[in-house]
């Protein structure tokens, strides 16, 4: 379990993380979603005690990370940029980290096999592809059989097979009762793996909610209706918190009502329905709506023209 309370990080007068409070529960995959520059990596570094918060606190399994006597058993982390000395082999990299906690050589061999790096384990990590570097980072995270796993952008640079592997691994780790906290700026990726979402923009908390509620709560949830008498139906449906808009092709887009409610209303008025379908917003659309004002580096047409 990870608990952040009023977590704030300032660099000079620039606020990278702004009063974040959230709880990451064990047993499920929690996605940490936000545009680039939203403060995700800074937050993760603060969880690991690598960066000190300007104010606020964050604990892992009840204690600040620094106070744990067996840190690698508490948290396994894959950090954003590669955190590997390029001159050292994958095996020696893992061994040197394992030795700090007395983790045996056999466990190093085990994680090397688990991430599929057996063939290249004795080669210098500097020659690794991005995908191989990610796998080595994930092996590092798994070393201590940790109760909490923190992965910053784990699918970066992985091939489709690697991405599938990560997804099932994350779900497996959560199913074993571990806390799994995964950041991404790829909404589609989160839709497939996470059950719970923590969404940030410009360092602020935008949402802390279940995946289903997140999608359901997005403003773009509309019902598409086509009937023999759209005008009459629209008149019947309109209410203070219901909007009805004409769609492009002879249909209506209704928001604020379910398909059931619309169907019953139409039936009651003897209006023949030709089409009635809920248009569920994708996670991507929901995300765009929510972070609309929270994107820090928005490209503008003028800067775009410079290229």
């Amino acid at each position, binding site marked *: *379990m990870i608990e952040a309370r009023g977590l704030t990080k300032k660099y000079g007068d620039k606020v990278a993380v702004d009063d974040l409070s959230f709880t990451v529960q064990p047993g499920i995959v929690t996605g940490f979603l936000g545009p680039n520059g939203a403060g995700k990596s800074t937050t993760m*570094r603060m969880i*690991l*005690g*690598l*960066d*000190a918060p300007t104010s606020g606190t964050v604990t892992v*399994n*009840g204690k600040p*990370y*620094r106070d*744990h*006597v*067996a*840190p*690698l*058993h*508490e*948290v396994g*982390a894959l*950090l954003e*940029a*590669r*955190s*590997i*000395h*390029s*001159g*050292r*082999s994958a095996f*020696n*990299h893992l*061994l*040197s*980290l*394992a*030795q*700090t*906690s*007395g*983790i045996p050589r056999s466990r190093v061999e085990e994680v090397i096999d688990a991430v599929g790096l057996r063939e290249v384990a004795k080669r210098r990590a500097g020659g690794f592809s991005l995908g191989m570097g990610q796998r080595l980072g994930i092996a*590092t995270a798994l070393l*201590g059989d940790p*109760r909490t796993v923190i992965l910053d952008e784990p699918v970066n640079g992985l091939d489709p097979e690697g991405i599938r592997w990560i997804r099932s691994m994350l779900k497996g780790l959560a199913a074993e009762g571990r806390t799994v906290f995964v950041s991404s700026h790829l909404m589609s990726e989160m839709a497939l793996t996470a059950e719970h979402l923590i969404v940030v923009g410009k360092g602020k908390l935008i949402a802390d909610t279940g995946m289903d509620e997140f999608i359901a709560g997005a403003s773009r949830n509309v019902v598409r209706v086509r009937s023999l008498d759209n005008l009459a139906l629209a008149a019947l449906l309109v209410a203070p918190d219901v909007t009805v808009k004409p769609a492009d092709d002879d249909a209506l887009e209704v928001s604020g009502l379910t398909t059931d409610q619309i169907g019953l209303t139409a039936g009651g008025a003897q209006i023949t329905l030709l089409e009635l379908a809920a248009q569920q917003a994708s996670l991507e659309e929901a995300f765009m709506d929510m972070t609309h004002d929270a994107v820090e580096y928005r490209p503008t047409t003028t800067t775009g023209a410079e290229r």
Partner: protein
Amino acid sequence: MTAVLEAPTNQRVTQVRVFRSEWTKLRSLRSTVWSLLAALVLVIGLSILVPAVRVAHWPPPDPNDARNFDPVATSLGGTFLAQMAIGVLGVLLMTGEYATGMIRATFAAVPRRLPVLWGKLGVFGATALVLITPAVLVAFFIGQSILASKHLDTSFGKPDVARAVFGSALYVVAVGLLGLGLGALLRNTAAAISTLFGALFVLPLIVRLLPSDWQSHVSRYLPLNAGSAVTNLHNDAGSMAPWSGFALFCAYVAVVIGFAAWRLLRQDT
């Protein structure tokens, strides 16, 4: 919350385990192994070259030159180059982790951080000492055997000779630890190496520009002069006594390491 699983004690971070980890890091980088080998080759190689040149051109035309002849220093000329190799290696052991991002993985594994600094100092200091001491001894005996052809040699039992020989090894190791401390303090390879060489080799040049009565007061306390007093067979009146000079040099190293430890704990990585 469910019953909290206490972390099994077999995964505790201990100083001994961090020593083991730092030993793995040290021996698994090719650059480290090459720098250490280079230091050994320099120490032993120059113990053949320099005495051979002295013997071939003996007696020197300047009688002062003959009077000030130091048979120990003549055989240990390689330690001047070895101190550079070891000093740079000390810097790189720390700054290499910052440059590659490895430091984040290191501090995630050892979040209290200071054991990493002690681990690097201990492992590197011990390794350097274990390699340099025999190299200096071998260099001494090779050098003396070459100098013996013109009866210029000295023996290990004569006053101050053993002190100068072991002192040379200790001085080289201390320079390595100074490099490591500067690397930890400055976190940047170029800055740490230029500071190391600036403090050792450039400061004496600057002091030489001061009025001469100041020079005599300042010069002996400079890191290079204080530290190398222990390596000289005969020290002139202006320099510090061998062991007090070396103690002062170690104090400089300790101050740098103290600041490094303070910055390590206080600042983000």
